[in-house]
């Protein structure tokens, strides 16, 4: 094989997407400062999955680390996309809520503690439907309580993406970091096709899906903040930057009128394409970030 044709940047970088949730969370912290909370050996598993013939996982697919990022206290909450699509159930939801609440409590006591959400999730776990929905409500309310004191930083790296109820958690976070491979949206492509038909949205058209939900488009439209390469070091550095920046002057989800006006200004008489939308919205005056 002729190695000279291969980009050294690509060969030398440490892929973030190829790491599992535990390794992703760990690589964000300052060396030797992180400890896992409620780890696999505590065996807090979902009590609902075995009743439905599904093998549980010892951490319920939600991994919590506490430590320091750039010298500041922080907690990372990572969803394992390979286990049940990174879905939120009773246990994983409670773990996430408790981690956010403890960070808020520390912050209120004068020790600002940032939270990093590593979201690879299709949203609520269907096998635990109502409990999962309740968990999302708690997660959003805990994230809102924390973000007054310290930044809540979401990373959507791929390959699962971040959809459903958990996209709301991404929506209320202070900063969102995405890769080109990552996708972020309320309804996933398959759900839209199933509910509205293939004419509305063709879930097999990957170019279309990434043109709408993909990281490049989300950052381009100002609905996410940083577009990064699939590089663990670059992502960790970006997180450190946002931890240092602290709470933003105004969160995206506080600008309801701004976004309402933006949507109202769109001419819906013809089908707008993703590139035009990105151009329009990125040029809008009053874009905060």
């Amino acid at each position, binding site marked *: 094989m002729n190695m000279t044709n291969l980009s050294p940047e690509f060969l030398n970088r440490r892929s973030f997407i190829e790491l*599992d949730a535990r390794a992703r969370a760990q690589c964000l912290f300052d060396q030797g400062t992180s400890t896992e909370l409620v*780890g*696999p*050996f505590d*065996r807090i*598993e979902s009590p609902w999955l*075995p009743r439905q*013939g*599904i*093998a*549980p*996982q*010892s951490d319920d697919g939600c991994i919590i680390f506490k430590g320091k990022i750039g010298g500041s206290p922080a907690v990372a909450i990572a969803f*394992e996309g*390979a*286990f*049940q699509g990174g879905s939120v159930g009773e246990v994983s939801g409670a773990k996430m809520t408790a981690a956010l609440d403890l960070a808020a409590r520390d912050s209120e006591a004068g020790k600002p503690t940032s939270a990093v959400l590593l979201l690879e999730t299709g949203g609520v776990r269907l096998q635990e439907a109502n409990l999962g929905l309740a968990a999302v409500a708690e997660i959003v309310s805990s994230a809102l309580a924390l973000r007054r004191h310290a930044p809540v930083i979401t990373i959507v790296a791929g390959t699962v993406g971040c959809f459903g109820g958990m996209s709301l958690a991404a929506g209320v976070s202070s900063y969102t970091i995405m890769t080109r491979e990552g996708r972020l949206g309320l309804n996933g492509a398959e759900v839209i096709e199933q509910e509205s038909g293939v004419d509305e949205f063709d879930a097999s058209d990957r170019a279309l899906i990434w043109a709408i939900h993909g990281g490049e488009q989300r950052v381009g439209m100002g609905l996410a903040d940083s577009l990064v390469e699939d590089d663990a070091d670059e992502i960790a550095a970006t997180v450190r930057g946002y931890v240092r920046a602290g709470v933003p002057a105004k969160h995206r989800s506080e600008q309801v009128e701004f976004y309402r006006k933006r949507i109202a200004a769109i001419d819906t008489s013809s089908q707008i394409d993703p590139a035009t939308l990105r151009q329009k919205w990125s040029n809008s005056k009053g874009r905060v970030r």
Partner: protein
Amino acid sequence: MEHIELSYPEAKRLITRRAHVGVVGSGDLEVLLEPSRDGVAHVTVTTSVDGFGDAWKAVLDRFFSKFGGAVRIHINDAGATPGNVLLRLEQAAEAVEQ
């Protein structure tokens, strides 16, 4: 879903560390390996696929014929092949013996 329990009384070698490897994703499994409390090895398996008790016993017999550590192993399995199971067990064993 099936629950399998096995014991290996001849596995008595002292192990002091613990290891967690794998993920309960399709065709994969997680292995939790920790020192045994009573000095011999015990294995529990929770698998989403029924009817492969003999295959599980064969794979674990082979693993313990070489490993011989007094450990408690718990496996959550989402349909891994026997080869995959053995690789994950060996990965966990390597992690505790490093």
